[in-house]
């Protein structure tokens, strides 16, 4: 069964017919070729597929594409300000070695984007609590925590400038 939807992804509006069984993650990856959204457990546990829906982090595997009809989605592809420039979070993940294989990274960056907007100067405890919704099997999390703290400082300094 197909259903017509209009979904805005990273500022571009897409009007097409999707299978009602498609998740938002499948829609992004297979219909729009936005494969930066990774799919891990496909039942909401691992956090790899996290994207922003109207600015709020959600699991793209726990949302049907049809449910995003009329809404705005932001993915990892829409985070950097330009093709030549990284977002402060991306920059900090690179500088602080916040990733190894990178599979979980897009989901964490998307969660962290929304998190830092809500909590601009987070404690380490708050960062760790936010990260509890994301599984990373490589890093042991320490460098991810440092990267997010670093990005928070960069964003705060920019805000003041």
């Amino acid at each position: 069964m197909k259903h017509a939807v209009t979904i805005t992804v990273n500022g571009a509006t897409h009007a097409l017919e999707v299978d009602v069984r498609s998740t938002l993650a499948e829609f992004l990856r297979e219909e729009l070729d936005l494969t930066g959204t990774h799919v891990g457990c496909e039942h909401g546990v691992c956090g790899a597929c996290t994207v922003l829906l109207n600015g709020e982090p959600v699991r793209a595997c726990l949302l049907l594409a049809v449910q995003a009809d009329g809404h705005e989605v932001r993915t990892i592809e829409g985070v950097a300000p330009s093709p030549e420039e990284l977002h402060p979070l991306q920059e900090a993940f690179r500088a602080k070695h916040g990733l190894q294989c990178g599979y979980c990274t897009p989901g964490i960056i998307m969660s962290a984007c929304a998190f830092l907007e809500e909590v601009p100067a987070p404690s380490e405890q708050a960062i760790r609590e936010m990260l509890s919704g994301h599984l990373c099997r490589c890093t042991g999390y320490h460098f991810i925590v440092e990267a997010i703290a670093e990005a928070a400082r960069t964003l705060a300094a920019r805000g003041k400038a």
Partner: protein
Amino acid sequence: MKPAPFEYVVARDAADAVASLARFGDEAKVLAGGQSLLPMLALRLARPAALVDINRCRDLEGLDDSNGALTVGALARQRDLERWARSRSPFFQDVLASVAHVPIRNRGTAVGNLVHADPASELPALLLCLDGSVTTRGAQGERVVRAEQLYLAPLTTSLAPAELATRACFILPPEGAGWGFAEVARRHGDFALVGCIAVLALDGTGSVSHARLGFFGVGATPVRSAAGEAVLRGREPTEARRTEVAKAAAAALSPTGDLHASAEYRRKVAAVLAERVLAAALGRCQRPR
């Protein structure tokens, strides 16, 4: 695509949703937040013929805090309750912080969590401890189901398949009451292995005027310890009495063991948590002058 094929129906409002549910008999499922339903569809533990999506039903939105009760519409997300709790209820805030993770709470609805009836979930136990209820709408009209009558078995409520849960109501604790909440889970945000909630209020003499003690994760449904509450009521909640109540309440539970925790371990932890939440509740009580 992992779910089995289904028909997708967008409901315009609550009445439309009820009509759609009636059309499919017991073959349709309501899609609200979908945070429990979608995994079940993906694993094919559920294979409904139709999903009735209520996310566009404006009349199911909303959150109302008045006359000592919190009423939440079927579309109020768990994060909406969290935002309300930030300024109004550290109790709710504490409980909600243990419900999965932010991205799940952004979509997951409170009412959906309540009627999903996972025995290890926090909100059903909270509903039970706050003398709450769920209001439903079906072909026969509206009815109110009290928390005590709602939970029958794991993932099973007394609601009929074609009945739509439209809102839930929590009676907020009396003025000056204290609360305690604790759970043991394998990771932060996971379903609890054992969890416990207590609410206590004192009268002018320091005796207990209101007592609630509830557990989750330790049986087929959330449970309240009516016997433990009766022992506390009208008496001074001394440490000895709290310990006695916690031990007796835990001994009366019938948890089942699984891969992660034996029944014996759960009962033991339940007693410890009950002692802790009763002490925490007492510590937060304000004595009326």
